[in-house]
């Protein structure tokens, strides 16, 4: 099962990032992983949180432009070449990656990364078939 990723539009202005994180923090929502893609003028903050539906609601109420997309949480051996191995398997499976970022938490001895791919459900099947472990929302949100 793909997990829910939240994206927030941010202008490159002082204090915007603090404001987003404060908004969800004030509602006891915990961040599991995040990344920022930016240009000169604006950026997109992507978040994996423990309560994605609530996060979308409070951010919208706070006046932010928010969207929810699906992403895959993939377990990766935490050792040299671990990520390369997983990426090669995904390439073999014909899965095209739009972007990825890492979780700070670990799954046992393994690392965890978020992959945004074109069609999450199809991609999940393809990479599972290569023996790669994909985690569901229940597992990820509760980390």
């Amino acid at each position, binding site marked *: 099962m793909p997990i829910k990723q939240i994206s927030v539009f941010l202008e490159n202005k002082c204090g915007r990032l603090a404001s987003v994180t404060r908004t969800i923090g004030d509602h006891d929502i915990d961040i599991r992983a995040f990344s920022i893609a930016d240009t000169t003028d*604006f950026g997109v903050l992507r978040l994996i949180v423990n309560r994605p539906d609530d996060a979308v609601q409070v951010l919208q109420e706070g006046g932010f432009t928010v969207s929810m997309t699906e992403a895959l949480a993939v377990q990766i051996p935490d050792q040299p070449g671990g990520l390369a191995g997983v990426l090669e398997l995904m390439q073999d499976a014909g899965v095209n990656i739009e972007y990825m970022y890492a979780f700070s938490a670990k799954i046992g001895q393994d690392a965890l990364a978020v992959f945004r791919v074109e069609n999450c459900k199809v991609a999940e099947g393809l990479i599972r078939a290569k023996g790669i472990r994909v985690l569901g929302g229940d597992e990820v949100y509760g980390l």
Partner: protein
Amino acid sequence: MSLIWNEKYECMPRPELLALQNERLRETVGRVFYEVPFYRRALQERGLGPDDVKSVDDLDKLPFTTKNDLRDNYPYGLFATPMSEVVRLHASSGTTGKPVVNGYTRHDLEVWAEVMARSLTCCGATKNSIIHIAYGYGLFTGGLGAHFGAERIGASVIPASGGHTKRQIMLMKDFGSTILACTPSYAMHLALVMDEMGLSKSDLKLKGGLFGAEPWSQNMRSQLEARLGLMALDVYGLTEIIGPGVAVECPEQNGLHVWEDHFLFEVIDPDTGRQLPPGSFGELVVTSLTKQAMPLIRYRTRDITTILPEPCSCGRTHRKIARLVGRTDDMLVIRGVNVFPSQIEEVLLRIAHTEPQYQIIVERRGQLDELEIQVEVSGQFFSDEVRRLETLERQIRREIEDVLNIGVRIKLVEPKTIERSEGKAKRVIDRRQL
């Protein structure tokens, strides 16, 4: 051929129409000279007497009338008849300062009903039509203007006025309304509420829509026609002159016929006051030809349009003006190019499929004017992929540059960053120190 209400006048050969205009202009100039001290002074200052204007060719000798003149003479200073002849008063909403007042004699109301009957007939109204009027009734000219035009035709009139949108939709459905008259933004609101109620155009019997009192785009026309299943026509008018019914589109939907037997019009350069030839955009100026209670000479409407000189295939001989592109108050001159917020709005509407919030910021860097357009990123615009947002930014820039022919900078901004006052966003910020 489409329906015509008054073929004798609407299709009058041009030479006859011109002779009629000359006669009526002479009468009007005479009337204001003798009855309105303001105009007598203004004419005398130019060394003009009541007999110095013989034809429309002499029009440019006459002084202009501006909105300030109306304010200075508030409320009755420009009336040319005693109050005993005035049977009705209307006034504009007056968002800034005092409202603009217009008075009507019984004959003025007859003329108004006549031009609105012509306008409604353009969008298919006949005595068999059921005409739903959702313009506000009251001091605003929209409601009663459309009302008496519709009654003149002999149609069945539903004087719905504004508000209670769900009830209005129920009435249109139950009563089988065939013509809708309201502002284009209210028509759009009706369409949205119909969606919410699970109703579509097939639940209604609408055939024609006469929309006016605010500027609207071609894009909005397509949306209204698709969603309401009607032919949407633009009607133009202003309280100062009479109300709606000064000009209207025919089913050709290519320019608005000005009812030239009642309203004489020119398009002028707003800076020099000189008349402009067909094809050049400038300020529309209207002179009353038949108005009794408050005739206006060369009234500067501040609306921007151009004369479309080609004869119309609908058969009407009255000349057309292009749909109003903006107001002189909103016009910006950037590097010598006239820019209207409405042009930018139209591009954004086309790309976003919704009315986006935007702001135009003009700055002067060195000797060069720079135009930045800030667009709020809302639901429809947003993608979590930076690449798509950048593509969107480029697409907006390219399309706006195509329309304006000057370079612009697009900046995507967060919602609610654009300053709003009383619900209306401030569209233009000019930071040039000229």
